């Protein structure tokens, strides 16, 4: 045994296992009608083709399962694979459907894990996010509400907000998010691009939520509950206390969040 391990340790590294985070859009299925599903997916892809090119997706069929609507998963997979999307995981299926998904090379995302992740990180934005310019919802009461204004092009749209973001509110921008007021404790702001807060940031700020690691967060008074860039996050307790109440920028360097005074 000991010789074995020493033999390995002297060898050149061939593979390495490292934990990593990445963000996958979820496609939430509300109907078992495959033609309808096909049409809606193609419609979405047409709106932002670049975005959906070879994009991995998680398939969420929890809605159907709870309503006990049966869905032909095999056909659904076939249908999705015929688009530019790559299904990689299933969520909320029945035992039978999970079996089939595993056989087809998908992994099973457990609902509990998802709930936890959603709570702590919003790690898996739903596909609905991708067509909405901005979302404001009340976390305690309703799921993300989408603004169905049609996105003109695939270019990211930045969003400017001039009023305070209150506790319980959530804001989402497909591009940069610029807040010209404070962000209360218990509020959550998310952007696919950068986040700027010209005021106190007391809530949660998540930049680069679709995986853009070069995104940054800027704020004039940092008291954040949580900051995250492309899924790499820190909560208040992990934040350098000397950076509290200071104007800072936050960026990602070698997978580590760097907080620097401006």
């Amino acid at each position: 045994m000991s010789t074995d391990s020493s033999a390995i340790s002297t060898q050149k590294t061939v593979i390495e296992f490292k934990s990593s985070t990445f963000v996958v859009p979820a496609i939430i299925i509300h109907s078992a009608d495959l033609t309808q599903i096909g049409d809606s997916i193609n419609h979405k892809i047409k709106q932002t083709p670049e975005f959906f090119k070879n994009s991995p997706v998680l398939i969420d069929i929890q809605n159907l399962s709870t309503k006990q609507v049966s869905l032909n998963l095999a056909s659904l997979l076939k249908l999705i694979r015929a688009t530019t999307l790559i299904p990689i995981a299933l969520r909320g299926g029945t035992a039978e459907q999970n079996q089939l998904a595993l056989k087809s090379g998908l992994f099973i995302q457990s609902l509990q894990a998802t709930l936890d992740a959603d709570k702590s990180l919003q790690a898996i934005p739903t596909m609905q996010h991708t067509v909405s310019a901005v979302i404001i919802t009340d976390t305690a009461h309703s799921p993300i509400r989408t603004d169905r204004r049609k996105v003109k092009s695939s270019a990211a749209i930045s969003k400017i907000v001039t009023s305070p973001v209150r506790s319980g509110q959530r804001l989402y921008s497909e591009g940069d998010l610029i807040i010209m007021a404070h962000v209360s404790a218990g509020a959550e702001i998310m952007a696919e691009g950068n986040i700027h807060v010209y005021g106190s940031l007391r809530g949660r700020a998540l930049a680069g939520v679709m995986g853009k690691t070069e995104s940054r967060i800027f704020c004039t008074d940092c008291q954040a509950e949580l900051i995250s860039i492309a899924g790499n996050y820190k909560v208040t307790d992990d934040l350098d206390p000397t950076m509290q109440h200071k104007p800072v920028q936050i960026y990602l360097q070698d997978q580590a969040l760097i907080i620097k005074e401006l």
Partner: protein
Amino acid sequence: MARIIVVTSGKGGVGKTTTSAAISMGLAKKGHKTAVIDFDVGLRNLDLIMGCERRVIYDLVNVINNEASLNQALIKDKRCDKLYILPASQTRDKDALTLEGVGKILEALSEDFEYIICDSPAGIEKGAHLAMYFADDAFVVTNPEVASVRDSDRMLGILASKSRRAENNEEPIREYLLLSRYSPERVKLGEMLSVEDVQEILSLNLLGVIPESKSVLNASNAGTPVILDEKSDAGQAYADIIDRYLGVNKPHRFIEEEKKGLFNKLFRGK
């Protein structure tokens, strides 16, 4: 068209009903035809503070269920003929209120009232939502303590996203802060948040500071809105609030500790 004002807070017991009674009387005394509606179904409180509890026959839920007309349910105030009260039911459960029913009542009232005051129940559930949904203005009543400020912030988020104005993408509800039960002495002792502390968290248009005052309890025991007690500090604070709301520029009062009179000084120096 009436202007609909919701008096709201999130947290309970901060002074919403006291405020609703005072400002509805204040606006009516200025000559504006005003209706005040109690949305606290199941608790019924406003009629006591307005001193008309014995005259309640029909209530908000009766009108919604078409068991009484609006005119039958509205109680005309005995002190001011511009003021009408629409009481809540003490017996019915909260589910009796519907968005459609409330909408209809507000629409009907809008035709001949200038101001409609909605006294919201505590919390952020259905009753509070119905009270704020149709509002044009929100008077956010907050006490200078952390829990109350946090709940107000949450309520402001709901006002900004779940009201009719928000849902129709109209000009947002105008939000005003009413900082109530304020005690400069206790702020000085560090037992209460100061106006600045609260404003740092909420950043709202401050309509007025209402001091902690014995006159409020006396007034509510007597069934008189405290604004009618013109000598009292709380009464004056509400009178200022009405003036500021109607566009008169008045400096804020009741924020600093009152100068002690000679009498107090003598006893303090001991």
